[in-house]
């Protein structure tokens, strides 16, 4: 029984709280820039020391100056206070400072509640399966500490605390599951999203392509998207995935261009038999491009549009994986009529660069009899001359880079070939543009989906021909046809620069990684991507279509679970039955007699009880008296063997006092 300052936390509690908050903030420290990480370690180290010595609060001026100092440091590091990284850095550092003030019960509860908040900020950095481990451990620890604070001075051992905490969380889990499925999801972001796609986004295809851009992407085997083909797999030469289309060539790099961004969507003439649906799960990227199979027509995302270059782009930013169905045409005529403005942009080239390439193209223009012949000449150049397809070509430098590539180094990756080819076509007067995206994919060993990795990134070209619209020409196919047929690992002579998952198949480690990817995909597809659309589909399957039904079901289920919990708790707080069967039999006999109006008083011994009953009901004397005597002998005199004990229990069960 504590009387002196029952609210005060003792050293043990302070140490535990400090320790668990440190543990929870550890992943955040790994995201911080180096000096902030060092500062965090310093602050938390100081808190450990204070807790160990049970130091009092530092005085007001010291605290204020520390807070101001921390805010200033975060502000100078990130330039702002309200981004995701700045906000979570601030949270972690301020929480560290707050740890010096946990003297009393109230402060302890405050700090532990903020600990839950730290958990949720980490979810914004990563939603991988490994985060589940972190969240479970964090929740368990924080809940156990909350229980410890509320157990008073005669609290239980840590093992019991963890058990209680685990039990509370298990009881809360069904409610959480019901809420997760049924709680209405609002589609749009409520106040806004970070412009860079959040911390989980990877850098994918960008709006600019210069020599080396695609090769850089190829060095990573991160999965860019996963696709399911419900209507069958397209042949290898049709597995082109369309990304941003680049129209403008300046300073040795291809960009989209300001005006082409505003081009209206092109007309696509397609036979219905050539349309295929693909289900895509796009890994989060920093851009809003919705990658789809060439040539995309529409997608199931309503806030999306087709650009002038026939690429799908989302108009609403989002963080996290995107899940959508894309309709694509495998064979179509894209833009049968080319407006003059677009032709102008598709043939524009900066002056005074790459004179030799220009001269070559001019020669072709004069000697060839049709645009297709020009294309054939260019492809023949790549095929017949000793061009090399390599990830590590000799650098050409920015000045006249295409001339040097075509006539001197003759080694490059797909971006070099696409860039040079498109330049030649434009120089020959044909409208052409560069298309970036992905080519190919690997099937998953565990699921029915295909993985398209960053290492499948590719660039090719499109030329506009009268009567055929924009036609895809892939100059890489002229140099390294295995790139299209098999994949990049087969096309490169030296594949040591390729990431592991791209160049090896079939080994145990590969299979394990694929298995992990399969699990992650299911995770991503069903849990992470559970949003308004998926919820609407799932709930309509259950027959719940309007909000009233959903809210009724939600409330009903939650109340139902709580009622079950009440019943369970009531059963837990029941009076435990004695383990001795003799005692149990006697108590059930007393209960039975009690139902007939003869409750046994707590102070009444068996003999007195029996006598009292006999006085009023002499007809029970024949059975009750020997039973009582037997009970006294068995329980108090400890006589009797197993047989007599069993006989007693049987006879008690047989005795049924009638009215």
């Amino acid at each position, binding site marked *: 029984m504590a*009387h002196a300052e029952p609210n005060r936390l003792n050293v043990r509690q302070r140490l535990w709280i400090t320790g668990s908050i440190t543990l929870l903030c550890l992943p955040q420290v790994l995201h911080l820039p180096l000096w902030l990480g060092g500062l965090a370690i310093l602050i938390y180290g100081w808190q450990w020391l204070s807790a160990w010595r049970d130091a009092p609060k530092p005085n007001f001026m010291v605290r204020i100056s520390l807070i101001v100092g921390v805010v200033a440091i975060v502000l100078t590091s990130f330039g702002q206070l309200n981004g995701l990284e700045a906000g979570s850095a601030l949270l972690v550092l301020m929480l560290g400072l707050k740890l010096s003030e946990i003297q009393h019960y109230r402060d302890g509860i405050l700090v532990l509640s903020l600990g839950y908040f730290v958990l949720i900020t980490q979810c914004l950095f990563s939603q991988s399966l490994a985060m589940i481990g972190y969240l479970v451990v964090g929740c368990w620890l924080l809940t156990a500490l909350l229980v410890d604070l509320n157990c*008073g001075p*005669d609290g239980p051992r840590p093992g019991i605390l963890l058990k209680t905490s685990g039990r509370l969380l298990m009881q*809360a889990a069904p*409610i959480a599951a019901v809420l*997760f499925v049924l709680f209405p999801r609002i589609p749009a972001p409520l106040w806004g*999203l970070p412009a860079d796609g959040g911390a989980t986004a990877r850098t994918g295809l960008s709006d600019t392509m210069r020599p080396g851009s695609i090769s850089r992407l190829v060095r990573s085997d991160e999965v860019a998207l996963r696709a399911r083909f419900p209507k069958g797999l397209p042949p290898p030469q049709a597995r082109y995935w369309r990304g941003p289309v680049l129209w403008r060539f300046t300073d040795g790099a291809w960009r989209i261009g300001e005006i082409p961004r505003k081009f209206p969507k092109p007309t696509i003439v397609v036979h219905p038999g050539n349309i295929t649906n693909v289900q895509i799960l796009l890994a989060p990227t920093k851009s809003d491009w919705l990658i789809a199979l060439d040539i995309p027509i529409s997608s199931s995302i309503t806030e999306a549009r087709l650009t002038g270059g026939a690429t799908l782009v989302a108009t609403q930013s989002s963080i996290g994986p995107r899940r959508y169905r894309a309709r694509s045409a495998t064979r179509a005529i894209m833009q049968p009529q080319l407006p003059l403005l677009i032709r102008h942009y598709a043939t524009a080239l900066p002056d005074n660069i790459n004179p030799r390439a220009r001269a070559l193209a001019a020669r072709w223009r004069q000697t060839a009899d049709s645009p297709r012949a020009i294309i054939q000449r260019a492809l023949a150049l790549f095929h017949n001359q000793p061009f090399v397809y390599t990830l590590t070509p000799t650098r050409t430098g920015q000045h006249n880079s295409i001339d040097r590539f075509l006539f001197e180094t003759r080694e490059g990756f797909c971006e070099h070939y696409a860039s040079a080819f498109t330049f030649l076509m434009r120089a020959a007067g044909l409208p052409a543009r560069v298309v970036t995206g992905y080519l190919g994919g690997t099937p998953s060993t565990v699921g029915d989906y295909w993985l398209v990795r960053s290492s499948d990134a590719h660039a090719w070209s499109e030329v506009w021909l009268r009567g055929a619209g924009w036609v895809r020409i892939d100059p890489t196919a002229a140099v390294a046809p295995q790139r299209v047929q098999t994949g990049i690992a087969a096309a490169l002579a030296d594949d040591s620069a390729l990431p592991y998952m791209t160049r090896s198949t079939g080994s145990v480690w590969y299979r394990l990684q694929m298995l992990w990817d399969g699990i992650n995909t299911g995770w991503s597809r069903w849990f992470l991507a559970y949003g308004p659309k998926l919820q609407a589909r799932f709930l309509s399957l259950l027959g719940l279509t309007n909000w009233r039904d959903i809210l009724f079901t939600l409330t009903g289920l939650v109340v139902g679970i709580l009622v079950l919990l009440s019943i369970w*708790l009531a059963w837990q707080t029941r009076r435990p039955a004695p383990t001795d069967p003799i005692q149990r039999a006697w108590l059930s006999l007393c209960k039975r007699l009690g139902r007939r109006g003869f409750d046994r008083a707590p102070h009444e011994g068996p003999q007195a009880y029996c006598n009292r009953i006999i006085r009023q009901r002499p007809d029970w004397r024949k059975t009750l008296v020997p039973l009582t005597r037997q009970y006294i002998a068995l329980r108090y005199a400890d006589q009797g063997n197993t047989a007599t004990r069993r006989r007693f229990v049987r006879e008690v069960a047989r005795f049924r006092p009638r009215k």
Partner: protein
Amino acid sequence: MLAKLRAGLGARIQRAIDRRIPVQTPPFTIYSDKIYILPTCSGLYFALLVLVMLLGSLNYSNSLGFALTFTLVGLGLVAMHHTQHNLLRLRLLAVDAKPVFAGETARFKLTFSNESCVPRYAIRISTHGRPGPSLSIIANAELSTQVARPASRRGRLACPRLRLDTTYPLGLFNAWHWMEIDASVIIYPRPAGDLPLPWHSSGTERTTRAIAHGDAEFSGHRGYVPGDSPRQIDWKASARSDTLIVTRHHAGYEQQLWLGTEALRHLAPEARLSQLARWVLTADAAGLRYGLELPDAYNGKTLPPDSGSAHRHACLTALALY
């Protein structure tokens, strides 16, 4: 004006509470209809935090964030039930208190019994708003604790109204229960006064000689019988034999002392009782046989001469309840 309103409202709430608290005799059990539960400050703060987390998850469409937030919502709801069950079916077995003198503090010993399979933690008992002890009882066990109440006047002091609070397990909700127990303790009047024992006021067969301890006429030894005053044991004689030996004094010269109010008429009524209490204590300490005579006018009693702790208690009780 506001203060008057608040006082009036407070009084009405208090009366409403009083109506709902029945006076109970131990042993009794706490049932759910008498347990009240409300969120604490920490609980409200926690709810605010969970709301912010929910808004954040909605904004970023973060499934793991939703999972965490909903787990915390579930945790809060579950904690509410656990807090209520921490008090439910707690049983008060008995209330015990030793009588004390006015001006001292009476201590009521409460024996609680936890008749369930799970332990109960951190049940705080408070009286009249003053915090008291905190109970934690393991499964299927009993625990006694003490609650103090200052005794200012003589008479019967009722057990104070108790409030049992608990915020176990998470501190988000506070469940409480009011207990009005039908038990009281006798408060003896405070002994005061310097008058000597009134031997002179004893009757004809009462002698006037004051007996100092050890001056009585020796009339023989006898064996010790349980109940004899330990002052009468003759230690020297007992050391020589195997049993305890008591010296017997002459019955004929036995002095009887009657305590009454005749000599105290010059004192105030309460002072008279205080003086009588002092006399009772003195007589009892000396091992004398004394009787008490209180006038009939005020429910007076007459207690024949006797000695021992039971007689002292009877006399002091008579004085207390006079």
